[in-house]
């Protein structure tokens, strides 16, 4: 089950500069674990205390995963996962 993951500029230090990498899994959590195996350090930038970090937005096929189960969101072979830094502040 391979998906394509788009990596934002700020996280590309973990992927050797690659904009897009491939990962495996049936849920977003599994995809992130697989990313971590190949690109150490990414998981800590995405997940905090078992949930998605508020500093990032993650989309599966353009759908914000906050509305489709968060880390439990299902992914299928060929899906596109997009990570963007959340733009927010006070």
């Amino acid at each position, binding site marked *: 089950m391979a998906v394509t993951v788009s990596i934002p500029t700020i996280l590309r230090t973990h992927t050797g500069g690659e904009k897009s990498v491939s990962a495996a899994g049936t849920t977003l959590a599994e995809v992130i674990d697989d990313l971590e195996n190949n690109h150490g350090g990414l998981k800590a930038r995405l997940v905090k205390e078992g949930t998605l970090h508020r500093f990032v937005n993650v989309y599966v096929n353009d759908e914000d995963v906050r509305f489709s189960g968060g880390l439990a969101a299902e992914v299928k072979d060929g899906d596109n996962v997009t990570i963007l830094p959340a733009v927010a*502040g006070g």
Partner: protein
Amino acid sequence: MLVIRRDLVDAMVAHARRDHPDEACGVIAGPYGSDRPERFIEMENAERSPTFYRFDAAEQLKVWRGMDANDEVPVVIYHSHTATEAYPSRTDISFAGEPEAHYVLVSTRDPIEHELRSYRIVDGVVTEEPVKIIES
């Protein structure tokens, strides 16, 4: 240093004034590698709050996709402070996720004189930079 056309500065200030007392936010896209802001994009403040802003996640994806398709990057990310000075708050710093962007703050706390300043925010470190406005 941020070099920016006057009409773009005016557009940010107008947006900030219009949404006052809520914070206004948006992006100015520019060609990749140019460091030149060109395409003004007002964003919805999903928080509609006088003390917080957040790009709507769905709108942000659409806008970021559009920039990708045009070979553009977010050269400027702006938002307003409506009761405090134009300096990044602690929350601004913790969220700052675009190390190559110029973070522009517009303060509308004074009803007549606005304050506009620009910063780089990289790894939690804020560096103010001069703003050079060019006549458009």
